[in-house]
């Protein structure tokens, strides 16, 4: 029986201008968002490939240099753009996608930890995910707010009930009609998008992406289903269509526009993050403090890079200095990231009353654009940076300056001789750049 009701409602809705205009607008926006996302991703991937190649080339062709100079030059690594970022860019546009693997310090240039809070609190970028999360519920409300109330107001509800149509069939029939409207609008676009995404992937990645798309479809289906039933319930219980519309629009504004913002602000108050200035100051202080302690413990020096430490030990000193900072970096970044994750967990609870908050996390997670995946990348990049630092330091230890402090006490007979001595010395320290370069590019 509910199929008969659904078919009638669908026929009514298709003859109603609301579905045509509102639905057409949503489909158009969806196509624009997909095209823009697709274009952005193609452009980004191309720029990244070019950037990575240039950077790698510059690394390979840096010529004869002191290993530490090479470490200071560093290299940029580019976070791989997940294919589903076209659908949901998540926090990507706010946290950046490039990490500079440089000497001594975890990169803060492209990844701004203290400012990430605003990135996590971001709301409202024209993406297909945003359209589904925010505009589709509005469309459901616009076409469904009077679904039940209008039957009552017109008197057709009495007619239906007098025929013995059970209320449950009416509800499910109307729900099926509303869901079909949404399905008719977004399913073809969604299906075409999924096929395009999957088709351009290497065969090995397809299963994973299809799996993610399936879960995304289920999650969004559940979310939109919630709005379908909420709309029908309010329409059935409200005194009039107008009251139903006001109530539903109020809920939509509160749940999709206000609640996410409020949740972000509230969780930021609950679990505050430092400003970038404070974060940098604390990190610098902790690294310096750890460095001082390490220099004192290993070399008996009062300060870092104390002249009392012979040049022959500077390879070891670099290693000690770097490793001393690892703890401070781990602690500071770890604390900051843990705070972000605590904020996100706390926001998850807001999802109980504002489902868009819960869906947003779910969607970003499956699209591979949420904070935890950014954290994984940053952690892996940092591990790689340390690996390279160790290679550099080990090389310096192995090829320590055999002249020791005498290096500064002996005057060269001429500039040309000194330069020749220097270049001979550095040639000994020449690193296998290609190996390190490859190691850099092995980042996950």
């Amino acid at each position, binding site marked *: 029986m509910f199929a*008969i009701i659904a078919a*009638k409602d669908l026929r009514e809705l298709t003859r109603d201008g609301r579905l045509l205009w509102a639905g057409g607008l949503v489909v158009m926006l969806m196509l624009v968002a997909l095209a823009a996302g697709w274009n952005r991703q193609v452009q980004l991937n191309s720029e990244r490939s070019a950037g990575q190649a240039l950077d790698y080339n510059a690394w390979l062709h840096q010529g004869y240099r002191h290993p530490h100079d090479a470490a200071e030059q560093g290299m940029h690594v580019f976070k791989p753009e997940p294919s589903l970022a076209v659908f949901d860019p998540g926090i990507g546009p706010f946290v950046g996608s490039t990490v500079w693997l440089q000497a001594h310090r975890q990169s803060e240039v492209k990844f701004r930890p203290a400012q990430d809070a605003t990135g996590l609190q971001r709301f409202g970028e024209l993406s297909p995910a945003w359209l589904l999360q925010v505009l589709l519920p509005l469309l459901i409300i616009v076409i469904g707010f009077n679904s039940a109330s209008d039957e009552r107001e017109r*008197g*057709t509800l*009495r007619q239906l*009930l*007098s*025929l*013995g149509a059970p209320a449950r069939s009416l509800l499910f029939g109307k729900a099926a009609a509303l869901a079909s409207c949404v399905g008719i609008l977004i399913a073809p676009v969604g299906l075409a998008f999924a096929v395009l995404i999957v088709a351009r992937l290497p065969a090995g990645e397809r299963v994973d992406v299809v799996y993610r798309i399936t879960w995304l479809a289920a999650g969004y289906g559940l979310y939109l289903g919630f709005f379908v039933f909420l709309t029908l319930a309010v329409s059935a219980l409200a005194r009039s269509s107008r009251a139903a519309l006001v109530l539903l629009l109020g809920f939509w504004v509160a749940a999709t526009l206000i609640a996410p913002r409020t949740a972000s602000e509230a969780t930021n108050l609950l679990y505050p993050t430092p400003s970038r200035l404070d974060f940098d100051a604390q990190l610098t202080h902790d690294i310096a403090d750890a460095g001082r302690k390490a220099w004192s413990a290993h070399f008996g020096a009062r300060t870092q890079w104390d002249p009392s430490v012979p040049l022959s030990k500077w390879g070891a000193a670099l290693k000690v200095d770097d490793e001393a900072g690892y703890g401070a970096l781990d602690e500071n970044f770890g604390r900051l990231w843990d705070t972000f994750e605590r904020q996100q967990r706390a926001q998850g609870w807001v999802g109980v009353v504002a489902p868009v908050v819960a869906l947003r996390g779910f969607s970003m997670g499956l699209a591979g654009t949420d904070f935890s995946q950014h954290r994984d990348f940053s952690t892996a990049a940092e591990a790689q940076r340390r690996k390279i630092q160790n290679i550099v330091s080990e090389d310096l230890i192995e090829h320590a300056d055999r002249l020791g402090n005498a290096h500064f006490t002996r005057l060269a007979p001429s500039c040309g001789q000194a330069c020749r001595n220097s270049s001979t010395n550095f040639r000994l320290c020449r690193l296998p750049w290609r190996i390190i370069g490859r190691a850099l590019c092995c980042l996950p």
Partner: protein
Amino acid sequence: MLDAIEVTKQFGAKRALDNVSLSVLPGEIYCLLGANGAGKTTLVNLFLNFLQPTSGSLQIGKLDVVRQPLETKRLLAYIPEQVTLYGVLSGLENLAFFSSLAIGEHLPRQRLLELLEAAGLPRQAADNRVATYSKGMRQKVGIAIALAKNAKALLLDEPTSGLDPSAANEFSELLVKASNDGVTVLTTTHDLFHAKQTGTRIGIMKQGRLVEELRSEEVSHADLEALYLKHMRS
């Protein structure tokens, strides 16, 4: 076929029906007369199970309306004062929808057209949107729905109110035809002429009570009018 047994319906302090008992036999047309607020529509709503009695019981074909709502609704068809249909759908589409709900199957277009024709709707109007229909045309679609359902009982709530005399007359003829086919009809009306002309029996209600019951053949138009006015003024 339609039985109300000592039915009382209370809305807060107001007693809308007060111990009403009536019985409509198969093939009878029972016309309920009464002023506004006399309880006629409340009684119809009770038979439809839109309301539940405070006390007493209602039966349709010996089935209890409250205990077996879906079964009793299968036996009856309801035509309100304003037959409410879906304006953006045609008369034919409305009939197709309501009849499929009522009988659980899709009738072919030809059968639907026959039903509309039997109800008096011109064939050329069948595919027009109901929004363009007059009240009389809507009533005819309502009758077509009842015909499609092949209902054993018809509940009508002031069905001729607002109809022009010709349309009202056509409607009365349809009721008589249905009654001759064995359909039981309970109709509320303000129209004494219609009641006398169409009804088998007439009941007069006042302030929730059934104050008079008579066979229409036993009274003339003038006597019925005098009796009605006497009850209304007392």
